[in-house]
């Protein structure tokens, strides 16, 4: 009998959403265990025993406890590779390698540019600060350069790693979802292929199940 996967996190959290989307794509049952961010539950010893970095999410599968959302999605996509959507293309060595490449591109090129912008618009206000335009502008410039490469890539293939949806595309969903609600959304929509790619991946049912819960500071 397999144990139920537990995911500790919050529905509004980008990184929790990343893992939940993956679990839905793989049709894997899981329980979302809410972590109370406002009372700093994630910084207290019981939680720190699961993730010493004091961040959500955390995934538990039997005796295995994992932190870092991209390590979780990689684990889930591999463990359940024969179920649901094929996110890692394990039957084709070349495709699988390209998925790995674009997973790292999201992690090392896209994420560092988009995350501070999402932070300024959504998190800073909760802490009583106004969005820092200097930070926003500097990161918009970086993100634009990354999106120029994406635009070229997506003009020759439907998705980032090839003509197939993969974990590499999925990883972009949560931060881009919030980004599209900011005044900066045009840098996505003014690039025809990036726009089409975004509309495609953000309309997948697995993501819609998750984005319903992503109401950050909205009524």
């Amino acid at each position, binding site marked *: 009998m397999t144990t139920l996967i537990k995911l500790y996190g919050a529905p509004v959290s980008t990184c929790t959403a990343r893992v939940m989307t993956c679990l839905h794509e793989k049709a894997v049952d899981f329980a979302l265990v809410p972590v109370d961010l406002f009372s700093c539950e994630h910084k207290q010893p019981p939680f720190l025993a699961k993730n*010493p*970095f004091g961040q959500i999410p955390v995934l538990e599968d039997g*005796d*295995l406890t*994992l*932190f*870092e959302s*991209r*390590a979780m999605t*990689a*684990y889930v996509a*591999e*463990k359940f590779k024969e179920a649901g959507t094929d996110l890692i293309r394990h039957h084709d*060595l*070349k495709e699988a*390698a*390209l998925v*790995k*490449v674009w*997973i*790292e*591109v999201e*992690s*090392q*090129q896209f994420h*560092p540019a988009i995350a501070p912008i999402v932070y300024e618009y959504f998190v800073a206000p909760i802490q009583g600060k106004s969005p820092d335009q200097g930070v926003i502008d500097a990161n918009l410039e970086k993100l634009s350069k*990354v999106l120029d*490469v994406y635009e*070229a*890539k997506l003009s020759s293939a439907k998705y980032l790693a090839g003509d197939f949806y993969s974990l590499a595309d999925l990883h972009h969903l949560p931060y881009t979802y919030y980004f599209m609600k900011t005044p900066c959304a045009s840098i996505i929509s003014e690039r025809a292929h990036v726009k089409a790619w975004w509309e495609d991946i953000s309309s997948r049912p697995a993501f819609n199940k998750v984005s319903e819960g992503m109401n950050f500071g909205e009524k």
Partner: protein
Amino acid sequence: MATPVKVYGPPLSTAVCRVVACLLEKDVEFQLISLNMAKGDHKKPDFLKIQPFGQVPAFQDEKISLLESRAICRYVCENYPEKGNKGLFGTNPLAKASIDQWLEAEGQSFNPPSSALVFQLALAPRMNIKQDEGVIKQNEEKLAKVLDVYEKRLGESRFLAGDEFSLADLSHLPNAHYLVNATDRGEILTSRDNVGRWWGEISNRDSWKKVVDMQKQQHSP
């Protein structure tokens, strides 16, 4: 006999030596094709075809061209499982996931502040770029918080993911090496008992010593 894989980029690049260290651990024959970044080799059309972001490293074997050092390392470990250090990325899914989470922690939490410090303290002066004291202070604080977590972890475990050296530890070598050897802030690592012990062990591995030798050969007097 297999043709050596190709790695494009200068050995002084942290990301390039992440890949080289991995290839050495895995005993995979490779050819390092250095690029002159000062001359803009990495921005030329031929290179952009294999690395559209114009960064190093790029990697080619008989089957494929790849970019992003951590993707290359994972590929090497998964596609040459019987070579060299077989446990570098774990020999079963649970071990692999445990290593992967620390490799992600390196990429998300250790790399950004350590890279910023290496740039500000070691590279900017050589490039005649003015150092930004605010950026230095901010990243020292960030890195200190990360290393506090490492200090606790490495008091419980010999290496980050467990008792064996893994890709997660390896991934830290390039930035940590520069911090300790090319800046005056090395004590951020060496003054912490457990982190210092761990740094001593991982930097003494034969594979890393070979990388350091390659860097010394390239560095013109």
